[in-house]
């Protein structure tokens, strides 16, 4: 029995909290100095085989998921839970206790006290003071005691819950993170324009993950600043199920697409030396889109057109102008430049052929499913609310003890007050209130 009490006391103690928080703070430094999640060989090369072996045992390469780090986090949770269970009954009593049952002598001993007297008898004074208190925003209750009348008014008793909200919010965040880890995944996929996929690749293991639907990259565009830095990039994505189009949406960095709990984030891109050429023949308006490699001839036999990209201009891997060679039937071949993404209209016999060309890209998507994230956000909100309440809202209490004065016709009054935090601030408002009550 004594042992269980001791164990309970240990897990309920703030001492353990300080120990755990110090351990977490100190050990967390390790992972900021030693790069995480590199291949095993990297650690051997960088630190030598003996150290690498030692790291392996302690799981240093993935220290934030290591057994000992998780034990520390577990200890923190156990500490939080037991500490809360241990203390809550006391807090609850402080919140719900009948403050009118206080012994008048205790009021005499309070730090904040003022005494004065009124000429009216006790009953009348009590009525006046109650009204004045109510006007100042305090709702008093009263009780007749042997020596007179006791008034009590309290504010912010509920704020004592604030600390529990903060502590529980940490648990809520942990639960959210665990759910995300077990039921969710994180992966990436590089999807060339015009192609689709039903699976992506997990971050750490590179294992394929089935999406359960098909995602298609219709097109990809990059905008540049005048200095050549990418300004914004965007992909048009289509979700298909059983060959049917379900959803089409443009995504940008910071503006992802979500379908069935799986979210696609625009994260990177890759430029190809291939081109997407689209040809439309007027007046019939027959068109077709081709993907062709640089400097290779392509044919559209039905329309008797042969063409190719013979030259491209640009900066770095970004193409700005494209030179196209084209031959239509028996007409003489033509070569011409088009701006990347724009089109050119080429008259040919009795038709007009509109040719547009653009550099081909693959869009780099980060893919995440995290069913726990809403709990994490809920926990974050609770934490902010809880912190605000536990720092800035106090439980303030006021008592007024009214007794017949020596002459027997008037009332002698004792005003006492207490606050569980921000004593100096409360002392000021106490004085102000007392001045108001004394008229």
């Amino acid at each position, binding site marked *: 029995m004594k042992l269980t009490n001791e164990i309970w006391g240990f897990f309920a103690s703030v001492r353990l909290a300080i120990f755990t928080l110090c351990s977490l703070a100190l050990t967390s430094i390790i992972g900021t100095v030693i790069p995480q999640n590199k291949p095993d060989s990297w650690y051997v090369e960088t630190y030598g085989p003996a150290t690498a072996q030692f790291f392996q045992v302690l799981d240093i390469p993935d220290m934030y998921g290591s057994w000992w780090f998780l034990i520390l986090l577990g200890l923190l949770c156990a500490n939080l839970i037991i500490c809360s269970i241990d203390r809550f009954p006391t807090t609850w009593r402080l919140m719900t206790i009948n403050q009118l049952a206080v012994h008048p002598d205790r009021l005499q001993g309070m730090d904040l006290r003022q005494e004065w007297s009124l000429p009216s008898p006790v009953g009348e004074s009590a009525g006046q003071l109650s009204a004045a208190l109510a006007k100042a925003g305090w709702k008093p209750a009263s009780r007749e005691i042997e020596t007179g009348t006791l008034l009590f008014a309290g504010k912010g008793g509920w704020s004592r819950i604030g600390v529990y909200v903060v502590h529980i919010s940490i648990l809520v965040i942990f639960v959210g993170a665990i759910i995300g880890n077990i039921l969710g995944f994180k992966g990436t996929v590089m999807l060339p324009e015009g192609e689709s996929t039903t699976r992506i690749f997990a971050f750490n293991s590179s294992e394929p993950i089935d999406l359960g639907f098909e995602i298609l990259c219709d097109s990809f565009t990059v905008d540049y600043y005048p200095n050549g830095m990418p300004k914004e990039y965007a992909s048009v994505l289509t979700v298909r199920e059983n060959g049917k189009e379900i959803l089409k949406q443009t995504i940008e960095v910071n503006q992802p697409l979500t379908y069935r709990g799986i*979210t696609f984030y625009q994260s990177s891109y890759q430029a190809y030396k291939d081109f997407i050429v689209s040809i439309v023949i007027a007046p019939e308006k027959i068109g077709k889109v081709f993907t062709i490699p640089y400097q290779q001839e392509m044919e559209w036999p039905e329309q008797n057109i042969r063409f190719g990209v013979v030259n491209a201009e640009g900066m770095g891997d970004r193409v700005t102008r494209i030179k196209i060679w084209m031959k239509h039937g028996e007409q003489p071949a033509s070569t011409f430049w088009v701006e990347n993404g724009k089109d050119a209209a080429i008259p040919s016999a009795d038709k007009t052929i509109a040719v547009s060309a653009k550099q081909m890209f693959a869009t780099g998507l980060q893919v995440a499913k995290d069913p726990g994230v809403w709990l994490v956000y809920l926990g974050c909100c609770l934490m902010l609310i809880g912190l605000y309440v536990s720092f800035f809202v106090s439980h303030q209490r006021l008592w007024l003890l009214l007794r017949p004065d020596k002459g027997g016709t008037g009332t002698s009054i004792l005003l006492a007050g207490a606050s569980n935090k921000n004593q100096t601030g409360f002392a000021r408002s106490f004085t102000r209130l007392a001045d108001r009550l004394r008229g």
Partner: protein
Amino acid sequence: MTSSLLLGITTFTYLLATLCFVYIFVFKAYRAYFFAITVTILALVIQTTGIGLRWYESYAMGIGHAPLTNMYESVVFFSWTIALLYLLMEWKFRTRILGLFALPFAFLAMAYASFSTGISKEISPLIPALQSNWLIAHVITCFVGYAAFTVAAGLGLMFLLKISKGGEKKKGGSQLLAAIPEPDIIEDLIYKSMLFGFIWLTAGIITGAVWANSAWGTYWSWDPKETWSLITWFIYAITLHSRYTRGWTGKPLAWLAILGFFSVIFTYYGVNFFLSGLHSYGSG
């Protein structure tokens, strides 16, 4: 008139304000107090105008964004929040001497931003990941927290100075230290600034996580900067709890305020230079 000129003037105005407080402290010239406060307010006004102008200039360049996105802009903003917070505290608590311990930080930050060769002052366009309102929320919340912790560290120094050389025992202490309020008043202020900073740091970490989640689907990735902000957060959490167990008030509290400040500076600044990670854009 350009923003860099205004921010350059700001640097010297903070220096002047700091010197005013040194003068008040050394010569007990309390009548100069209003002058010192006026100079501080003037510096803050010039700085606010400078920041606003820089914002305007970025729009004139066609790459408009709030001036909170690189090292230079963030140091300027850091200095601004310190000065603002200092003035609010002075207004509320009237310590009359806190300026001596808070304003040097505002000045040093500005001096570093203005004169360090390692810092580019150019207004540069934003890479796509940074084009998010969460970025603004993240930077503002973090820096309000940092400023509060900086003031707490300044108060910590003030406390240690006050209790040194028997400042506490002989009522009033040495002549020079008499200008510093009594230790228990300072201690209360240290604690208050820490509580205030803790809420903002918490909000800063949370807005950063929300932003990361909206940009690449991971709210926490243990990158060095994130981890260090968490370490800083732990340090202040430990400080909040220490008084419930060890009764660590007074001297240990002052030292923890200073330790926390070092952790803040490392999170903010050291990580960019000594460790690598997602936030490496911050070093430009």
